[in-house]
C-alpha cells in the first residue's frame, strides 16, 4: 500500500493543490497549442506543441501522484472501458493528445494533422471542466458555464504564454478578448450558483478562499488587462498566475 502524502489543503480526500496545478498546466499548455494552430505560423505551432506536451506530461504526473494508489495508475487504461466516467475519458484524451503532440513536434505535419491533435487537446482542456460538472457538488454542477470558463481561461493563459515567448499584436487582442470573456464567465457563474451554493460563493468572496479569488481578480486579471499595452511581459506573467489561482479556487470552492 503506497500513499504519497503531499500536503493537500482539502485533506487527502479532497481534490486540492495537485489537481488545480494539473488543470492549470494542461489548460495553459493546451490553450497555447490551440491558439497557435488557429492563428499562428507553422514554426510557432511546433513550438507551442512542445509547451502543450510539457503541460500534459507534467499534469499527468501530478494526477498520478494525487491518487491514493499511484502504483495502480495503469488500471485507468487497462481496467476496462468506462465512457460514462469523465476521469476515464480524460485519461485517454491525455494519452492520445500527448502522442499527437509528440507527432506534431517531431516532424512537419499537415494542417489536417495539427487540427486533429488540436481537437484532442481541446478535449483535454474541456474535460477538466466536465469532470467537475458531472459531480454532485452544486458549485460545480449548477451552472453550465464551467466549460466556458475553463476554455476561455486556457485561451487567455495560453495566449499569455505565447506572448511571453514572442509577443505579437494579434495575440494581444486575442488575450484581451478572451480575458474579458473569462471575467464575464466568472461573474455569471458566481451569480448562477449563488442560490444553491451560497457557502462556496461566500467562501470565495469573503471567506477562506478570498485570497485566491481576489488575487485572481486583481493580480491575475485586472492588472494584466490594464498593463497589456505597456508591459506585455509582466502582464503575461500575471495572467499565468491568475490562471492558476482561478483553477485553484474553482477546485476548492466546489468542496467547501
Amino acid at each position, binding site marked *: 500500500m503506497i500513499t504519497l502524502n503531499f500536503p493537500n489543503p482539502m485533506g487527502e480526500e479532497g481534490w486540492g493543490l495537485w489537481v488545480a496545478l494539473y488543470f492549470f498546466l494542461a489548460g495553459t499548455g493546451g490553450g497555447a497549442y490551440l491558439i497557435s494552430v488557429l492563428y499562428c505560423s507553422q514554426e510557432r505551432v511546433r513550438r507551442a506543441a512542445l509547451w502543450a506536451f510539457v503541460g500534459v506530461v507534467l499534469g499527468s504526473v501530478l494526477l498520478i501522484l494525487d491518487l491514493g494508489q499511484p502504483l495502480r495508475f495503469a488500471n485507468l487504461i487497462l481496467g476496462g472501458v468506462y465512457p460514462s466516467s469523465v476521469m476515464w475519458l480524460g485519461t485517454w484524451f491525455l494519452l492520445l493528445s500527448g502522442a499527437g503532440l509528440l507527432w506534431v513536434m517531431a516532424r512537419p505535419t499537415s494542417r489536417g494533422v495539427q487540427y486533429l491533435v488540436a481537437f484532442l487537446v481541446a478535449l483535454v482542456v474541456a474535460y477538466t471542466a466536465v469532470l467537475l460538472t*458531472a459531480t454532485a457538488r452544486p458549485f460545480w454542477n449548477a451552472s453550465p458555464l464551467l466549460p466556458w470558463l475553463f476554455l476561455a481561461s486556457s485561451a487567455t493563459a495560453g495566449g499569455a504564454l505565447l506572448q511571453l515567448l514572442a509577443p505579437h499584436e494579434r495575440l494581444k487582442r486575442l488575450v484581451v478578448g478572451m480575458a474579458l470573456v473569462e471575467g464575464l464567465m466568472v461573474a455569471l457563474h458566481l451569480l448562477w450558483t449563488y442560490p444553491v451554493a451560497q457557502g462556496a460563493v461566500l467562501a470565495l468572496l469573503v471567506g477562506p478562499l478570498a485570497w485566491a479569488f481576489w488575487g485572481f481578480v486583481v493580480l491575475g486579471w485586472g492588472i494584466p488587462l490594464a498593463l497589456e499595452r505597456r508591459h506585455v511581459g509582466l502582464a503575461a506573467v500575471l495572467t499565468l498566475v491568475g490562471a492558476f489561482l482561478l483553477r485553484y479556487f474553482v477546485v476548492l470552492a466546489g468542496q467547501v
Partner: protein
Amino acid sequence: MPNPNDFAILFDASRCIGCKACQVACKQWNDLEAEHTRNAGGYANPPKLTASTWLAMRYYEGLRPDGEPYFDFVRGACMHCTHAPCVASCPTGAMAHREGGVVTVDQSTCIGCRSCVRACPYDAVHFDEERGVVQKCTMCYDRIANGDQPACVKACPTDALTFGRYQELQALAQERVRVLQARGYPRASVYGLKELGGTHVLYVLTDHPSQYGLPAAVREAEKRAMGGWLSAGIAAAVMGMGLKFIVDRREAFKGGRG
C-alpha cells in the same frame, strides 16, 4: 428500476427512535474504527460519514411553522442506487454493482482517484487515507450473500429497518405510507423510488424529504456529464469562431480592405 428480486433495505422514519443501534452494529460487524469527534450541539455523531463510518443517524429538531416541535431521525448511508453516480464516475470499474444490485468497491483495483466521492449525492463514499482506497456501506454483502440480514437491520429494536427483496419492500413501503397518511401525516412519502433509477434502500418519511436533509433533485452523473460536454462543445465553437472573426476583421480593417 431495481430488479424485483434485488436485495433491499427499508428504513421507516416513523418507527425509528434514533437509538443508533444500527450505527454501532455497522461499526462492529465491519470492524470500523471509532473516531475522535467534538460535541457540535446535536445528536448526530460523527457529524458526517467517513471512511470508517458508513452509517450514521442524522437528527433534525426545531419548530414547525405552526409552532409544533419536531424531532426527526434519518438514516445516513449509501442508498445503493440503480443508476449510481459513483459507479458511473469510476474510471477503473472498482466501484460496481454486484449480484443483487448492491454497490461495492473492489479494494484491490481502486486507485483512490476519489471521483466517486465527488459524484455521490448522499456523501456516502469516502477516502481511506491509510489504505489509499475508498470505503462505503456494502449492505453487509458478506452477510446477505450467505442468507443473513445486514448488521444494521438485525440490530434495529423497533423494526424501523427491514431487509428483503426489492419488490416486497417497495410494496411494504407504499402500504406504510398509506397508513401514515390516514393517521394524519399528509406529507408522508417513500423516498428512493424515482431517485437515480430507484435506490435499493428505500425510506418511508413522515414529511418532505428536504426536512430530513435529503437532496430533492438528484441527477444521474451521465446526464450531468452529457450536459457538460454539450456546453463545452458550444463554448469551443462559439469562442473559436468569435475569436477568429474578431482577429481577422480587425486585421482586415487595418489593411484598409474593410
